[in-house]
């Protein structure tokens, strides 16, 4: 017991959040000029950059091209200084490869790929600082980058993690909570049509608790969606206002 109390008797987590509270989210779309779309996103101390290139011609061997739809190419890497212990390699390790394929799977499900046959879209994600929920932040940042690039999608795709502690579901785990040995449920959903496009669970969680945790993660995803959507729309409005001024002179 003398270790940590992940959820106190007073109902607070180690960092002062309540079980259903998210970390602070801040983001910016369009941080780079050269990429077709880009976004920077912070979820607490997890900081992620995403860049989108394309759709463009297939790079490398043409054999990879899909005759009826867009080829989505992802790369997940982590800056060598992003973790507590310095990483030796930014990518190519098994964890990064797994993340890469998870991202590809997630965005295959949401981008309207049939609109762009025989070409390729690149989604690159770079984790600058890692404090838990790397996949979630990557997905959320990449969604924003895709929007910035103007790639047609079914919906936002929003990811959030969750777990179960002292009979209470918690959402948006930080690194400390992730490494406590409990179960972790990670979900990516289409928030406006309540569809789950990605689901992963680590460690053991009893079946009875699963739906409770999933419900809370779902709510967490929607909270994130509201935060992102609000700012995206505000920016859009501001931009159209500006455009109006420009066009009307």
């Amino acid at each position: 017991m003398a270790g940590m109390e992940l959820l106190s008797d007073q109902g607070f987590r180690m960092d002062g959040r309540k079980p259903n509270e998210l970390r602070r989210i801040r983001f910016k779309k369009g941080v780079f000029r050269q990429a077709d779309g880009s976004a920077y996103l912070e979820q607490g101390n997890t900081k992620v950059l995403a860049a989108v290139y394309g759709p463009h011609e297939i790079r490398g061997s043409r054999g990879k091209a899909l005759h009826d739809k867009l080829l989505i190419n992802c790369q997940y890497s982590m800056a060598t200084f992003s973790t507590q212990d310095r990483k030796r390699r930014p990518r190519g390790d098994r964890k990064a490869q797994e993340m890469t394929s998870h991202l590809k799977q997630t965005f295959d499900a949401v981008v309207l790929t049939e609109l762009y046959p025989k070409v390729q879209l690149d989604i690159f994600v770079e984790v600058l600082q890692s404090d838990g929920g790397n996949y979630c932040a990557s997905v959320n940042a990449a969604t924003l980058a895709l929007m910035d690039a103007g790639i047609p999608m079914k919906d936002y795709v929003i990811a959030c993690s969750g777990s179960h502690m002292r009979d209470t579901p918690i959402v948006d785990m930080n690194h400390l909570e992730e490494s406590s040995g409990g179960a972790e449920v990670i979900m990516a959903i289409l928030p406006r049509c309540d569809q789950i496009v990605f689901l992963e669970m680590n460690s053991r969680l009893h079946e009875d608790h699963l739906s409770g945790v999933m419900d809370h993660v779902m709510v967490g995803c929607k909270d994130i969606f509201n935060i992102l959507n609000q700012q995206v729309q505000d920016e859009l409005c501001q931009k159209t206002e500006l455009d109006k001024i420009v066009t009307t002179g």
Partner: protein
Amino acid sequence: MLTNKVFIKKTKMGGVMKIVREHYLRDDINCGSQACTHNCDSDGKEPLEEIPISDSKLVMKPHYLVPDTNVVLHQIDILEDPSIKNVIILQIVLDEIRHRSAPIYKRVKDILASSHKHFYTYCNEFNMHTYAERQPGESANDRNDRAIRKAVAWYADHLKDTEIEVVLITNDAGNRKQSVLDGLKAYTIHEYVRSLSNMSLIDRLANPLNQMNQDNNGKVLFAEHLGLAEIQKGIRAGRFLQGTLLISRENYLEAFVSVKDQEKMIFVQGLQNLNRAVNDDNVALEMLPDSEWSCPSSMVLAEDEGKDEEDEENRALNETVVDNKVPKELRQPTARIVGIIKRNWRQYCGILQPSIIKERTRHLFIPAEKRIPKIRIETRQAQTLASKRIIVAIDSWPRNSRYPLGHFVRCLGEIGDKDTENEVLLLEHDVPHQNFSEAVLSFLPKMPWTITEDDVKRRRDLRHLDICSVDPPGCTDIDDALHCRELDNGNYEVGVHIADVSHFIRPGNALDQEAANRGTTVYLTDKRIDMVPDLLSSNLCSLRSKVYRFAFSVLWEITPTADIVKTDFTKSIIDSKASLTYAEAQLKIDDPNAHDNLTKSLRGLNKLAKILKKKRLDNGALSLASTEVRFYVDSETNDPIDVKTKELMDTNSMVEEFMLLANISVAEKILYEFPDNALLRRHPAPPPSNFDPLIKAAQSKGFTIDVSSGKALADSLDQAVVPENPYFNTMLRIMTTRCMMQAVYFSSGMLQPQDYLHYGLATPIYTHFTSPIRRYSDIIAHRLLAVCIGADASYPELLDKSKIQSLCNNLNFRHKMAQYAGRASVNLHTHLFFKKRIQDEEGHVLFVRKNALQVLIPKYGLEGTVFLNDDGQKSSSIFVYDEENNTQTAGDVTIHVFDPLIVQLSIDRSNVQHMKLSLKLVKPMIPGFSVQSVREVQANATGSQSKTSTTDLPISGKPPQKKKKRTH
């Protein structure tokens, strides 16, 4: 609002980890006061009273107290007093306590959960108004003090529209000074307690380290303790060793230290070398040069009870002079203590040393545990406490004090009173026995408890089966029930149904933590200390008849030759048709006219059990159960019941067989599913040398004991029977028991599979599953099994092999202590029984020692020692010890092992705290040693006080607690 906490840590490889953690600050944290005039979002939690009544002359207005960390740590006895109410425990204080002392943390949590104490935890660290960011140049301690002041200031401001004042209680002078500068009220705990009308609290104040030193003569008696950093450095460099101090029971100035990762024990001798270390402390040692090595002296040295303290103080230095005339070959590695790594002080039972000056307030306290030094305390109630058993806690041990300083905690009652003595024995064996706290009770199911449809859906309904329980008479905590029915294919379906305790005790809550800490139910001769509250142990979990109960069932399909075809585990609902005693069950089986389903079920079970038992014994399982001789008192006559009447019936062994089978089946299942973290029980095979005394003793009667395997041992024990001495075989089995190792719980991931062996039961793997009401190990087994079959959720601690192992360590400790406490309870009752009588009894020599005979008295199941040299006069013995043949000879009488004797039993009450049963030899008659038999004495003193021995017994009329003896 957001801030980051930054830590820097160094890893082993020299890496520097800069750890950054987010820390969210909020403005929605409730103040917890009913008097609050703001809109605090309370969630209904407002434990602090609206108008707390002030009892203090210092703070006349109603007030709340805010103690700092050290006050809570050192003065927990004060805080626990019912008169101290309305206290705010800051989160920062609670966190620090958690890191510094687990037992005190638990006590604080208990107070916090208690509704009439009005204690409240305020999360000051998460409130944006009370969070204190560490400033450059500020130490962590200073920051914490500042945070506490900030919280107090916030409270004062928050409650400024009310009558209530907020008072900081701190013994840190700097902190108090700063508080006054900040315009806050701050007092020391001593100032505050002295201002209360309840004067008895003053005695319970812990002594601050410096206060008492000043009025001492200032003579430094001890070397300084090294600091922790220096100790760690020394340990790394190999200059110091680290270990746990074990003071000798015979001589309080000698001790051994069991050094970490080392088999050899290191010897420490003398007051100076012990350097204020107390038994059980974790200490740092420095080896002495070989020339100063010593060995335990054969002298028995107990602190004198009568001596006046000044006298002793003068003696203090003299005692330390150790002349090294110890012969080289006897010398043992000897060391001195240079520092204390962790104190392991607890509260101690004992009595006050009678003082010559009546009015004085400083007194010495003599602990019941001989290995603990006397403790100096201050009390104004010495008069009333003189004949009482009291509890005292140690606060400190300064360098210039011969004795540690402590404070009075509470009074247990009159010396010699049975309840008091029971309490002492529980405390001394560290058996948690307080009433369950409110926090614990809050996790009990709400009554009336009903079975819901959802429950039924999740469980297999076995209510139609003819299940019954078989237990000793008077048993209220029924763990297990059984059934057996014939299947169409000629096989049997046998079910063992165990109380589903884990359904009611959820992992991690206060109830679970309490049960895990208690580890086991403790059975004393006249009392049972439950592991779980009565509502569960005797009602909801207990598989009583004619009520629906939840069970965890093991179902087997067994062939008529008792081979298992199929094993199935399920959570179930059962309806026990009858709660039988062993005798009732036996009657049913034997009754030729009974043909009801229940009887058939019992007969089936009995038949299969016999086959199972035979298989097990053929496998080499040891049968040592018959050696369990216990002291029982008949409720009507208060006479001990003869041991022979405890003969086991078939039904005893019938139940036992199926419990063993269930335990083994469960062990296999959970190990298969959790190879790393299954909780199992092992009983290591004893090293062959352990059997030497047994072999030697049996040889003297012409028997050969083969110890090459369990099977061989069991067989040779069976053959060693002497018709004219019915106790011979029993005694051999008692000796065999002494050769055995302790059976222990362990986590499967910590050992190799070949070490899982249970020697006594001759099974490669074993666990405890069948008594979850009274053993925590079984609850863990239940949880693991429930996860295996998907009936319940796992949790991180359950899957962590090292956490399971540390749990096992506690359980092993608690079980050992429960056993000792049980034995001590028997001793206590023996003493009470013989308090007013002297009696002659038949006995048998169990062991022949150098200066004594170990004698077994079958009638009482007692074992005692007849000292051969009259220890009072230290005169040389008239006996000659023959080591070769293991005999003692005096004149023409030679005493061998197993010889029958007549001994006289009486109570030696020369020591108030430690009454001893004294045995004196009556027969054979040895002039100058043996005493006259009681009858002869009575015959001589013509008729005056005859027949003193059979009436006026101090033992209460309550029947003894029936303990289920199925411990393997």
